[in-house]
């Protein structure tokens, strides 16, 4: 995946050596002219031999020194090439460089990387926030507009049903059932978009409600443990915790075949969320083929964790269940 760099022909080191060869040769030529050396004279050939030897020696030393001097630059290039902005791991440009210019170059490159990462996170957070806001608005509209209209229809149908002739009573009852069903579906949709409990009551009650519904839908037993006070966390972090849990539970429902899911939320020096199931698990190798948010949705979860300033860790083994852990450092 290396970019096309022609290393030998016109590399910096090659050009410098070539320039030096020309310079040294010219200098020696001028020196021999000035000294009045003549190749036809027998004992002066010897002097020429020494001169030629010294040219070759000088050039070798020159090449060797240049290579030494240029090595940090090559190393820097290697390391820069290894950086993948999508996977920020550690800091490959950490060690100080021996040459001032290269050290500066390394530093400014690091600063540039930091700025890019910062910008990525900032814009990612903005996008995430805008998305949550949009979902919240949609959920509210579903509640406030559509569901209220359905409530009104339901009430009127009930009123109508009270003095409907018996032969039409069944029809009215059926209409009410349909309206009821629509209301329930809308409520679920709104809740999926953005549960109002998250805004009205905070993270833990919203998680509790989510787990209860998950349990009654799938029959999987759920346990929720908390340590510290997650309801005091910033809204973005609460949302990230809620969404990662939501995604992890969806995976459990789709793939795991679990009987128990345990969710731990810990707020101490760092924030930790663990969703652990006792289901089928999967081979870690299966994750390699995964890209982005498809399949297990791990990409989406990892991105959420990253934008919240944390990281995601998924551990699983066939037959050994799966544990999804998100850790977020606390910002001062």
């Amino acid at each position, binding site marked *: 995946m290396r970019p096309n760099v022609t290393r030998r022909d016109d590399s910096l080191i090659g050009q410098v050596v070539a320039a030096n060869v020309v310079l040294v040769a010219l200098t020696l030529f001028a020196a021999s002219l000035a000294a009045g050396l003549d190749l036809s004279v027998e004992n002066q050939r010897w002097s020429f031999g020494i001169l030629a030897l010294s040219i070759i020696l000088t050039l070798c030393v020159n090449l060797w020194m240049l290579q030494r001097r240029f090595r940090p630059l090559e190393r820097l290039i290697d390391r820069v090439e290894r950086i993948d902005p999508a996977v920020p791991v550690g800091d490959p440009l950490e060690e100080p460089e021996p040459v001032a210019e290269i050290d500066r170059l390394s530093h400014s490159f690091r600063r540039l990387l930091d700025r890019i990462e910062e910008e990525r996170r900032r814009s990612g957070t903005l996008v995430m926030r805008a998305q949550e806001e949009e979902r919240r608005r949609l959920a509210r509209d579903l*509640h*406030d507009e559509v*569901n*209220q*209209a359905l*409530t*009104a*229809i*339901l*009430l*009127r*149908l*009930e*009123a109508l049903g*009270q*003095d409907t002739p018996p032969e039409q009573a069944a029809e009215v009852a059926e209409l*009410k059932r349909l309206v*009821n069903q629509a*209301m*329930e579906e809308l*409520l679920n949709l709104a809740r999926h978009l953005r549960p*109002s*409990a998250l805004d*009205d*009551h905070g993270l833990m*009650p919203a998680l*509790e*409600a989510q787990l*209860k519904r998950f349990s009654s839908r799938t029959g999987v037993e759920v346990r929720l443990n908390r340590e510290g006070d997650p*309801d005091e966390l910033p809204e973005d972090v609460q949302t990230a915790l809620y969404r990662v849990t939501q995604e992890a539970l969806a995976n459990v429902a789709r793939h795991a075949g679990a009987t128990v899911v345990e969710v731990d939320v810990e707020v101490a020096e760092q924030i930790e969320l663990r969703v652990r199931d006792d289901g089928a698990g999967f081979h870690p190798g299966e994750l390699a083929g995964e890209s982005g948010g498809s399949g297990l949705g791990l990409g989406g979860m990892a991105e959420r964790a990253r934008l919240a300033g944390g990281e995601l860790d998924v551990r699983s083994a066939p037959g050994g269940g799966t544990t999804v852990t998100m850790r977020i450092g606390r910002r001062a």
Partner: protein
Amino acid sequence: MIRVLIADDHGIVRSGLRMLIERQNDMQVVAEADDGVAALESTQAERPDVAVLDVSMPRMTGLQAAREIRSHVPDTRVLLLSMHDDERYFLEGLEAGAAGYVLKRAADTDLIGAVRTVAGGRTFLSDEAQRTLMDEWLEGGRAEPDDPLTPRELEVVKLIAEAFTNRQIAETLKLSEKTIESHRANVFAKLGMRDRVEIVRYAIRRGLVEP
């Protein structure tokens, strides 16, 4: 004749409620309001038997209006109407002093019965809410082996859960308001709870108040 106030910020819901309630021979709609503040004012003016309040209304929520009605017009029974079926929302409703909680989704089957029930001085909860609270209550059976609270504090918990204010609790227990305040602080500290809703849940689990 049961005199009913209806409050909802959606005109179409109000008209549906009116239509259904007026069709009953023993009920009459005496006032309508489109937000919590108007609901409180109309309740004070009309003194209806039952105030049917939507939980989420502008200016003052149904919950807050229920609290105000409870303390200013104690004879009016409040019936909350809500979209939400999460346990926390019922608990908040009970904590606010509502006598009933009806899901809008179940308004066709539950509303009229609920109005009669609360007008008769009893409490009404939609099936789903009852089930949830029942679970909560049953779970309490195996918890709390050593109760950290004194009998006096338990009395205070019960009254907090029933939405009494400090002053009302002081009057009921014939203690000073200061004493009640310190009991209240102790209760919250001992149980490690942060708001009244958690107290309500605790009171239900302990069987101090009926779901």
